[in-house]
């Protein structure tokens, strides 16, 4: 018997083993097939997101959907964080300007003094 004949005989035995698969296993395989085919007939949503989450998905549509939601949630958190920092910086900047203005306006020195060159020269000269 040559190599191919031996292989074919072994394959026939494997076919017999497959035909006598446990009923429970055969049923689970049928369910898996139906789920895969249901995915085919379901309308496709956001293909770019499915691709982005393809590495993590294993067991069904629900899981992949949540993977997509997690990606979106992450993007939203990052964008929200950047916007919050920008807002805080602008508020802080305005507050600094307000404080400086208030200090100038509330000081006893008249505003015109800051425009007087002689006063600036005197200030520079008088500083230790």
């Amino acid at each position, binding site marked *: 018997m040559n190599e191919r004949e*031996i*292989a074919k005989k072994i394959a026939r035995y*494997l076919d017999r083993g497959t035909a006598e698969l446990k*009923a429970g296993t055969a049923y689970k395989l049928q369910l898996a097939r139906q789920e895969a085919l249901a995915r085919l007939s379901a309308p496709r949503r956001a293909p770019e997101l499915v691709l982005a989450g393809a590495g993590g998905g294993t067991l069904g549509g629900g899981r992949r959907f949540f993977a997509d939601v997690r990606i979106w949630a992450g993007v939203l958190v990052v964008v929200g964080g950047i916007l919050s920092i920008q807002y805080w910086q602008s508020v802080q900047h305005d507050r600094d300007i307000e404080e400086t203005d208030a200090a100038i306006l509330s000081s006893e020195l008249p505003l015109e003094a800051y425009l007087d060159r002689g006063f600036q020269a005197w200030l520079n000269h008088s500083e230790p």
Partner: protein
Amino acid sequence: MGPRGSHLASYSELSAFLAEVERRAFKQALFAVRNEEAALDIVQDAMLKLTEKYAAKPPAELPMLFQRILQNTIHDHFRRQKVRSTWTTLLSALGQKDEKDEDFDPLETLPARPDSNASIDPAGAHQQAETVALIEQALARLPARQREAFLLRYWEELDVAETATAMGCSEGSVKTHCSRAVHALAEMLKAKGISL
């Protein structure tokens, strides 16, 4: 609409194709991972990938594509196992032996097609079942690449070039793996007193 029409045709073809290959795919995964639940997950994953990404392919390309996806999914399974910490791997390895015993559910051992052995006498059926079990054990003991090559080439009946594509290796390697696998299987079965 045009695409909808071709979509329906793909659905029926895919359904028939998956129904035809699902049991062999399960056995292939089982020989590799030796765990029924993991093997079922692998087959389900492979089916999902095929329907999601390759449903529009011509039916003639489906067997090779599915085998390639299946082999990659099996490799992914092993890759994920490697990434896990050592204690998890040890526990799962111990668990596999226990699961085999726990899985012995009398209800689940009922054959899917009770009439498939109607023409065989009980003694012959028992001997045949024993031979099948020994062959499956011998296959599971083969090196992974030899087993892959053997199953793709002689069970799935892919040609050498298709097997090489599915395995991601050269045609020469396929021939070598197949030859070694057949010799190893023949030796193992001979040692168990089984003549084919």
